[in-house]
């Protein structure tokens, strides 16, 4: 993976830039190499680079001050939430200042009449729900990293979670943001219902991977907590049958809050690790429905009836809190479990559910061709796949082989009508694959949006767009058109 060469002139001015930042925000600047190490990479830890400096501002005004200085100095800036990005979205370059939001965790407003909460953007996803659950509400997007990841990172990546089949992803639950532009100006986007006159700027900022501005505060929609929830585990003797069952459930008009899928390699690894008591089968589904007990009974009866048509090896409907916990336990430990037995690379392609059998077949074929095992776990209801490619990081050349195979799988997803990333984002990781999904004209249209928000291309550069395509803009040699 290639990163642009750091601007030597900026690196040479490091001391002066740090001094200027420190004068403006005295207790917020970190430049000791031992301390900036922690900001060398995000959760895509295979790639790392120490930044020029790190600033940890306390509020919007400080973020604006720091950005204004960086803008004047021509220094690139990398925004950072909790650093859990799996796409290298928060990875710095040697000439960049990292602005971390870890000190900005304040709860600013809870309004139950308007069903919203306003927080500083460094606050963790889980703590947003924790702030309102006592009053019977929750914040719906629930990425698996919710204990650690920050709302600002969620907004930048438009993160989703297991329950997004019913509740949508971040963009569907975001009402407004305070955004600081690269030149230090502050703007409020959104409004009641997330709606503002003119263009939907909030909609385009969400998912822009920290390239349009730094989100310092966010207004989020909160929802009343459902009366209850119950999962069922359904085991099958083939992945195809499991896939067909997913389609049949959706087709029948039932909309569960979650439908999760695991295949045999994944089940085996998870069992060895978490001991959730999963059945011995080729593939399994976890289907969760919500409501009061009679409502859940009604939905479960329908799901059971549909599943019977696919001759499942087992239909295990939870009858207690403990059983529910155990059904989810395996799924929730899947990534950790795989990490215990092997190095792995987690992909994040999305496909139309109808293409599931074809894609699973294609992945198996690629697995043979590249000689690397794959375990599949994914959000089946919405076609968001997480194939985990297993490799040995110490074996020479295996990481490269793994990356090549990952690229082939993602191309396959695009070929069947899907996309490169369903929730993790493009970052540096999938940047060069963008041309598989978009024409140059499509990419040019997206880059025009960045031109408007950040004309000098200083915010989180070298992410999202293929390096060759973004080079004229990053180097300031593009036409003003």
């Amino acid at each position: 993976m290639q990163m642009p060469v750091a601007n030597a002139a900026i690196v040479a001015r490091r001391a002066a830039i740090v001094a200027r930042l420190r004068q403006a925000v005295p207790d917020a600047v970190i430049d000791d190499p031992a301390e900036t190490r922690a900001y060398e990479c995000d959760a895509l830890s295979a790639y790392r680079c120490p930044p020029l400096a790190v600033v940890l501002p306390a509020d919007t005004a400080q973020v604006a001050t720091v950005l204004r200085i960086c803008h004047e100095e021509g220094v690139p800036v990398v925004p950072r939430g909790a650093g859990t990005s799996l796409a290298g979205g928060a990875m710095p370059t040697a000439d960049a200042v990292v602005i971390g939001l870890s000190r900005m965790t304040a709860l600013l407003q809870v309004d139950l009449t308007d069903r919203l909460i306003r927080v500083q953007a460094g606050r963790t996803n889980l703590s947003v729900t924790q702030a309102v659950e006592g009053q019977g509400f929750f914040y719906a997007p629930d990425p698996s990293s919710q204990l650690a990841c920050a709302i600002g990172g969620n907004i930048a990546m438009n993160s989703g979670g297991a329950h997004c089949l019913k509740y949508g992803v971040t963009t569907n639950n975001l009402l407004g943001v305070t955004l600081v532009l690269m030149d230090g100006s502050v703007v409020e986007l959104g409004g009641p219902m997330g709606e503002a006159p003119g263009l939907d700027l909030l909609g385009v900022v969400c998912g822009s991977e920290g390239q349009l501005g730094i989100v310092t505060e966010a207004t989020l929609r909160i929802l009343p907590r459902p009366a209850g929830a119950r999962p069922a585990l359904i085991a099958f003797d083939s992945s195809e049958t499991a896939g067909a069952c997913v389609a049949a459930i959706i087709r029948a008009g039932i909309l569960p809050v979650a439908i999760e899928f695991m295949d045999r390699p994944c089940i085996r690894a998870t069992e060895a690790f978490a001991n959730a008591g999963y059945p011995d089968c080729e593939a399994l589904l976890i289907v969760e429905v919500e409501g009061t007990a009679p409502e859940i009974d009604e939905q479960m009866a329908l799901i059971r009836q549909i599943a019977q048509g696919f001759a499942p090896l087992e239909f295990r409907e939870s009858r207690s809190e403990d059983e529910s916990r155990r059904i989810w336990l395996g799924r929730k430990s899947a990534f950790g479990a795989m990490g215990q037995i092997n190095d792995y690379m987690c992909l994040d392609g999305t496909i139309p559910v109808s293409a599931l059998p074809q894609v699973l077949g294609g992945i198996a074929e690629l697995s043979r061709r590249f000689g690397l095992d794959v375990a599949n776990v994914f959000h089946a209801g919405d076609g968001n796949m997480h194939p985990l490619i297993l490799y040995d990081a110490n074996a020479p050349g295996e990481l490269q082989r793994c990356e090549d195979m990952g690229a082939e799988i993602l191309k396959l997803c695009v070929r069947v009508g899907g996309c490169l990333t369903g929730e993790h984002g493009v970052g540096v990781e999938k940047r060069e694959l963008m041309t598989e999904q978009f024409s140059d004209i499509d990419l040019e249209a997206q880059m025009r949006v960045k031109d408007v928000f950040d004309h000098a291309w200083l915010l989180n550069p070298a992410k999202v767009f293929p390096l060759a395509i973004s080079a004229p803009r990053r180097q300031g040699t593009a036409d003003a058109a």
Partner: protein
Amino acid sequence: MRPETEAELAQIIRETRVPLSVTGGGSRLRPDEGQGQRLETTGLSGVVLYEPAALTVVVRAGTLLQDLQQILASEGQMLAFEPDLRPGSTIGGVAASNSSGPRRVLVGACRDAMLGVRFVDGRGQVISNGGRVMKNVTGYDLVKLMAGSRGTLGVLSEIALRTAPLPPCAVTLALPGLDAAAALPALTAALSGPFDVSGAGWLPDAGVLLRLEGLPVSVRERRRALTDRLAPFGSLIESDAALWPRLVPRMAQGDLWRVICRPSEAPALLAHLPQVLAMDWGGALIWADLPAGQAPDLPPWSGHATRVTGDHAMTLPATAPLVARLNDSLRRRFDPRALFQGGA
């Protein structure tokens, strides 16, 4: 002009020397819009791809909304959002105006159901963004930018949308006799519990209107719980589903205004809006009839008000200068010759 293909559409835009007014069915035009040469999209019609099991449909922008709804209904489905139905309107017009009816309180707006778009910008280039899968964070979300852009960035040629199962059972409930201000706490109570209310509005003659949809047992359960919860406001009676379209008034004696606010701000606004025709979205949307040509005198609030009928367009309060600048620059980037700016 009425192109039949996307290529023809692109050619027209590349070659035009005069400003264009993009229209679908022309059913959602606002004051000052539609002044340029008409460019009708109704020739670009038809379903490109429909996968009921994936809950997605891809449709050309000029397709009549009613035709699309019929096709979906034949598979037991509907659009995943609720457009307000206007005779002759096209799905492109619905998307370009982000037109979202009562179900918005539960499932979100039109923009939330839009998965992908193809459009021709002011340079005559065909641009594709998003896709046809439910989760997609590949690149910037220009789909949202196009939703509600009212034809000022380009002409939509194709839209991928989320569909949803048609609810097997639906019931409209009412609390009659409440005036607008008294309706607000009842609406808030209905939306603050686990009742999955899919419509929460108010009409002067019908009072509070609530809708429950889903499987039969579930609707019955939620109705019982909701009745208990709303007991302090009166007794919830069964009402008529035909009332819902009236939550989107189309005409006023003077000018029709659409006011967006937080429900907690609504009481203060209501005090300044003598003629309220309807409220929707739990009080976040107020439709008011105001004397023609006159701007309402409203206290400061977090939303905005738009005049949707009458002689001239008007939005209150004035857009913040920086936001206005971002809007203008984006429009200039996508439409450098200002072909589509007639309505903006």
